């Protein structure tokens, strides 16, 4: 049995201007010890998806359909207290903004101890001891527990957040762009540390990022999301060797390879669709260089193209042609011109 199984999950945000479907019919599963990279542009629903695993959606966010089976129980159906017990102990989050995730008026140590004690009968001293242990694991001095957040650097705060997330050896770690606020050198160190510990305590991890190069380094499998839907899902090595979806091809272009330093990057013109509107056809149609009549009408479903490799495009058989064209600048320039012709701004 998988540790986590997400089936046909849809999540809506109710806003003043209407309903926005942020996550639409997403399914995937995660094995014990597996690490999964969730990539996509800002606003593609990856953070919403991750938060729903802990039922941390904002007040106007609702799970409209689907189930999230964690260790055999459906998280969607759990009551408040059931969810509360699950958080941190079973599913822990390493959040996006380390800078602001610690309460400024309490010491870091108090905040760790408080989390540990919310899930156990540990005395203050025992919890404190555990906090010291995780601090050591993450590479912070125990005396730092007495610091207030403002007395620590960004990297330290991020480490403290990670220590907090690991304090109860959770079976699932959700890391939501854990290092975006840090400089590259610190970023690398911290990412290494996270995966090291994750492997050590044999927990699974969902790693959310818009930096696919990080995924290639850290994760065993990858899910590419676009406008609330899964576009492609594969083992990481397979994905980076042979991505299938036109969007994935475009994404790959947008990241520099060590082999062609100096080349100007090719970006995908256009912007994701407005999810307030009802989506007809493929969501990537406006920006796809290969779109056809069919893409305008039919929404492609996720289907298997190879063993363990899924993607949502009508034309898996044209992959050879797609890959070849995708590396050419003209292909994407044509999309830009088409967008301008259609009245868009072609950015």
């Amino acid at each position, binding site marked *: 049995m998988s540790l986590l199984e997400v089936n046909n999950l849809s999540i809506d945000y109710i806003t003043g201007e209407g309903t926005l479907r942020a996550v639409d019919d997403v399914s995937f599963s995660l094995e014990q010890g597996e690490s999964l990279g969730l990539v996509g542009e800002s606003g593609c629903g990856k953070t919403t998806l991750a938060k729903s695993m*802990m039922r*941390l959606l904002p007040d106007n966010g609702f799970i409209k359909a689907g189930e999230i089976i964690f260790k055999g129980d459906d998280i969607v159906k759990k009551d*408040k207290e059931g969810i*509360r*017990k*699950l*958080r*941190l*102990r079973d599913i*822990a*989050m390493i*959040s*996006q*903004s380390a800078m*602001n*995730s*610690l*309460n*400024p*008026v*309490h010491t870091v140590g108090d905040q760790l101890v*408080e*989390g540990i004690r*919310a*899930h156990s009968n540990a005395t203050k001293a025992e919890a404190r001891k555990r906090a010291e242990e995780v601090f050591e694991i993450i590479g912070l001095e125990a005396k730092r527990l007495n610091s*207030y957040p*403002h007395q620590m650097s960004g990297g330290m705060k991020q480490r403290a*957040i990670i220590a*907090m997330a690991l304090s109860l050896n959770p079976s699932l770690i959700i890391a939501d762009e854990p290092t975006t606020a840090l400089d590259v050198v610190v970023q690398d160190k911290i990412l290494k540390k996270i995966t090291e510990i994750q492997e050590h305590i044999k927990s699974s991890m969902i790693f959310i990022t818009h930096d696919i190069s990080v995924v290639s380094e850290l994760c065993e499998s990858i899910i590419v999301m676009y406008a609330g839907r899964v576009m492609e899902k594969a083992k990481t090595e397979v994905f980076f060797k042979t991505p299938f979806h036109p969007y994935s091809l475009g994404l790959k272009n947008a990241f520099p390879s060590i082999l062609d330093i100096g080349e100007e990057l090719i970006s995908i013109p256009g912007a994701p669709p407005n999810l307030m509107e009802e989506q007809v056809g493929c969501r990537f149609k406006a920006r796809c260089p290969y779109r056809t009549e069919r893409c305008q009408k039919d929404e492609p479903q996720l289907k298997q193209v190879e063993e363990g490799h899924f993607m949502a495009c009508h034309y898996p058989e044209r992959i050879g042609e797609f890959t070849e064209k995708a590396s050419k600048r003209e292909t994407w320039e044509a999309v830009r011109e088409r967008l301008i012709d259609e009245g868009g701004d072609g950015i």
Partner: protein
Amino acid sequence: MLKYIARRIGIMLLMIVLISTMIFFLFRAIPGDPTAYVVDPSMPQEARELMLERYGLNDSKWKQYTIFIKDLMKLDFGDSFFYGRPVGQIIAERVPATLILMLSAMAVAYLIGVFGGAWMAWRRGTRMESVGITFALIFRSAPTFWVGLMAILVFATKFRWFPPQGMRTAGYTGETFKEVFLTLDFLKHLILPTIVSGLYFIATPLLTMRNSMLEVLSEDYIEMAHAKGLRENTILYRHAARNALLPVVTAGALFIGSAIGGQVLLEVVFSWPGLGREIVQAVTRHDYPLAQGAFIIISAIMMFMNLVADILYGILDPRISYE
């Protein structure tokens, strides 16, 4: 920290001298002089001169000013023209009545305001929240004297639940603090004005708390607290309210500072023998020493409470230090 406080007190002393100077000349810029109030216009010129002479008002402004400042250094505010007694004494008599009323009103306003504000933020978007805001704003915008008169009309005159005015029933005389203030009779007189001014004050803590709570609730560390699986009450009080309270505490400390001046309209409506009413009368009577003394003391307390607020802030928020 001590160095910081010493520096602040030094600045405060300088400010008091400046304020005293302004007050001194402002009062003398008001048309008319004390004799106009004390005597009728038909009073012979000689008598007027004599009186001005006695008050020292015939001296040059500069001379008057130097005497005033010299006395001030000795904390001597002079004698009231009207009462003929030391100003310090008169103010000391009036301050307890004002402070008791203001602090009771403040306690009511802050207790309801802080908890109500936190609750309103927690329940934002509900009908109860809009009712709460409207209610607070109505009493803030309605003229206090009107609300006071209506309260007297309804609760004192019609239902006879409370006495309509004053601080004690006519004929009652008390000399010591205990005899005057620690009686059931005083408490009965206190309730109505406390409620009326409490209602007026409530908007500040209620809306400050609500807004600052709303801001805090959207902070990442609140989400983190949820993600840690803490209980709702722990999040609400230990994490949210604890941070949201900061601006409310400052507002509260400053409020105590301004409370000493009392609420003039309220004191007039309820015939409350407080400092606010006394100041207004002192100004109309051209009772320079009394008015000056009262204003100087009010500004000194105001500045002192400002300092208290800053120190409190440093204690409540570890990010602020005065080293």
